[in-house]
């Protein structure tokens, strides 16, 4: 890691060399380590140090992006020279919009110290647990540290550093069970409980039975809800999608289409998530209510999309070149009942541990998604988990699914998505399963 002073002074030197009216320079450094295990052994174990210097420059209604990991000063000077040629070659279409400086909220900068030995020790614990039940153990543990600095010609000068850990454990025998979670560090994740849940699901999912596709009440556990939320975000919560008229917000903005208790927001400063106070333009992240008391409120913005509506960026720019702004710190507000209570009050339904290979390009505006269930699909009857089921294919509008939510669990966990999502389990009526598979 370089630290704030070194990064900002490096960026200032480069910014000063760029001769254009609008310019932005940023440096992202990322160190990540990851241990993957399968069939009770560590089969992949890696560490990487990444660096990316990005220059955005604009003159009139012309703009260009250059990105390199090579910090050789002569090469950078050559890149800066190339900018001129690349800008002059363009017709005038749209200027490079840059944000004004804003105060950056302070946040805790406690970083993790990645340890292959700690990860190996955890793998040993997971595999020993599986071996007691004659099961094979699979999964991954990762530790990530990132720092990011940015300066622009309007006076933005921002820096942040953050870290997080991610763990997933899967057991396989005649059935399979899986759990995963994000934490501030590996010690922050309760792996004893997480691996126990994965183990129990594996044991319980032995000898699954087939069920006919159709419309069912489902209880989606947090990992499945995370995927649902990710699809809603990708297709709907970006101002770019709204401006291109391909978001469900174009149809339902300001209308009460969900129940009162549906509240979804993005908050990069919420300590229950992974705090990243600025976006990739150096704009402080604002809390944005995406759905409030059942009403879709609006998307998130970066500077380019905000300017088009004479608004201010909400601090949701992605690294350039990007497909538009996106919410990376999502929260689905929890309910009051435990998952156990929700199951016990369900007369007939299907409990889904997680989804697999979900895509929603079928009909992006309705977020019509198709995907599979996996690693623990169970039939609930009379408030009890009755038996494991073979996996099912769903084809379901996720917007419609959100309108059919009848319960939300009080437990919520932090799961990976485009960024991070803190999500509960939800009970959804009339969820459409359209196909089945052999296992």
């Amino acid at each position, binding site marked *: 890691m370089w630290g704030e002073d070194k990064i900002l002074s490096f960026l200032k030197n480069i910014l000063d060399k760029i001769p254009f009216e609008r310019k932005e320079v940023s440096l992202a450094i990322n160190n990540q*380590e*990851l241990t*993957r295990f*399968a*069939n*009770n*052994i*560590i*089969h*992949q*174990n*890696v*560490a*990487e*140090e*990444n*660096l990316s210097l990005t220059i955005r420059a604009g003159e009139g209604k012309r*703009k*260009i*992006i*250059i990105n*390199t*990991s*090579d910090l050789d000063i002569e090469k950078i000077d050559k890149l800066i020279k*190339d900018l001129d040629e*690349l800008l002059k*070659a*363009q*017709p005038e*279409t*749209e200027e490079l919009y840059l944000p004004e400086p804003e105060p950056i909220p302070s946040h805790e900068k406690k970083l993790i110290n990645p340890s*292959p030995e700690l*990860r*190996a020790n955890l*793998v040993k614990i997971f595999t020993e647990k599986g071996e007691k039940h004659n099961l094979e153990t*699979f*999964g991954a543990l*990762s530790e990530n540290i990132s720092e990011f600095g940015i300066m622009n010609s309007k006076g933005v000068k921002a820096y942040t550093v953050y870290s997080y850990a991610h763990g997933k454990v*899967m057991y*396989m025998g005649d059935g399979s069970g*899986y759990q995963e979670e994000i934490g501030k560090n590996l010690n922050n994740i309760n792996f004893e409980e997480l691996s126990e849940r994965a183990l129990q699901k594996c044991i319980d999912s032995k000898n699954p039975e087939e069920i006919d596709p159709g419309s069912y009440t489902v209880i989606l556990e947090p990992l499945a809800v995370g995927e649902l939320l990710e699809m809603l975000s990708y297709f709907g919560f970006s101002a770019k999608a709204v401006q*291109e008229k*391909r978001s469900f917000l174009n149809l339902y903005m300001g209308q009460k289409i969900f129940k009162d208790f549906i509240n979804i927001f993005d908050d990069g400063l919420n300590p229950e998530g992974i705090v990243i106070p600025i976006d990739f333009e150096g704009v402080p992240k604002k809390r944005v209510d995406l759905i409030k008391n059942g009403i879709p409120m609006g998307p998130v913005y970066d500077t380019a999309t905000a300017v088009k509506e004479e608004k201010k960026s909400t601090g949701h720019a992605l690294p350039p*070149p990007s497909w538009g702004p996106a919410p990376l710190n999502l929260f689905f507000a929890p309910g009051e009942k435990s998952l156990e209570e929700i199951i016990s009050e369900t007369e007939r339904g299907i409990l889904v541990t997680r989804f*697999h*290979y*979900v*895509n929603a390009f*079928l*009909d992006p*505006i309705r977020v019509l998604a*198709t995907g*599979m269930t*996996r690693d623990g699909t169970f039939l609930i009857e009379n408030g009890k988990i009755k038996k494991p089921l073979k996996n099912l*294919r769903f084809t379901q509008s996720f917007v419609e699914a959100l309108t059919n939510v009848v319960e939300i669990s009080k437990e919520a966990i932090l799961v990976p998505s485009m960024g991070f999502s803190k999500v509960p389990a939800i009970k959804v009526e009339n969820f459409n399963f359209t*196909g*089945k*598979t*052999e*296992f």
Partner: protein
Amino acid sequence: MLEIGREILNYASRLGGDYVDVRIVRRKQEEIEVKNGVLENASKNETYGFGVRVLYNGAWGFASSFNLSDYRKIVEKAFQIAKASASVNKKKVVLAPEEVYKAKWESQYKIDPFSVPFEKKLDLLFTADKIMREVKGISLTEASLSFFKEDKVFLSSEGSEIEQSILESGGGITAYAIEGADVQRRSYPNSFGGDFRKGGWEFIEELDLIGNAERIAKEAVLLLSAEPLPEMVTTLILDGTQLALQVHESCGHPTELDRVLGMEASFAGTSFLTIDKRNNFQYGSEIVNIVADATHLYGLGSFGFDDEGVPAQKNYLVKNGLFVGYLTSRETAALFGEKSNGTMRADGWNRIPLIRMTNINLLPGDMPYEDLIASTDEGVYMAVNRNWSIDDKRLNFHFGCEIAYEIKDGKLGKIYKNPYYTGITYEFWRSCDAIADEKSWRVWGVPNCGKGEPMQVARVGHGVAPARFKKVKVGGK
């Protein structure tokens, strides 16, 4: 690159270990996108760094960095990680034997796209974009070009030293017609960025994006008033672009031996093509022949050597419908007493090589394309992928396409919107009763194949000609 590679390898070799390899990679990319008449993105990207893979006491460690001057620290990190792996593992990795190579390989091209003036590229994109926007009813347009250059060296403690240089080009256009909640689109020559291959600017000229702009824009508008495809079980003909993705998802991924052995189980899943099925499972009908061919002239999955230093090869995965082979690495091939068939590739310097598809090609049949349609009394023709999903053993798939055409009495008829088809992999391939001949066969480039953790994106190819399948479940929304 070779000099610094030797220095890193020498240092690593002094630290011991069963095996070490070093890769140094410089990648250069240029991306240009025009959207609705605006230069949405013009970017150049260059990345340079190295990765060290160490096998210590039968266990793997890997470390990588952009900072070549600090290579000692990275090499030591790779050893530290391998030792941590070894402290847990009860089984040791053994590598299949491989020859030592001192070699150079370069992909073929005529015109270096990085030397083509920026104005010329922009002119092409703005012209295609304008033609699409001039079609009444078009709401959104996209035109893009993408160029990729990779120079890399591979050195191993066994003595191999391999230099490779790869140049790839691609591009495409998409027109959207949007009316309320109905979003329709048409793309050319393929969706999600177009088509890509090893080659230079000459390929972009060959694509004729401008000549196809008006046609696809009009088709997108026509789709708004088309009926959704009715649900039915019928005969289905897939065009090359969609069939390429079908091969990718239902043959390419399930034949990756690391996936079969569970190495991807907790992420992307496993495979129905378990070890017992090799030479013992009817994957498709007798006319289905699928090869993994890394030697193809322009395929995106071609190379001289893989990232373990194994030469490019052509091998059958499915022969006369029978499943016969996997994509392998030195580690996985050794488990069966075989040599690697050379499919290990890494997404740049910072990631480890994994088993990746090369060019997974469905070999052509013997029926002219025109006869494929003419000999179909009733059915549906689908073109260009829009959506894709398959289960974690690669059995139950569901694909959406941009457009479908009714086939009646051997002729293409009215168009349908929102078409999809779904099925079980081996049932689908067993129902294949005709494949068009080599006149309509080409390799399509897929530059965005995701696999592994951290996620790696591979550039792969799929050679196909349109083909016909019986009794397939299709529908629209």
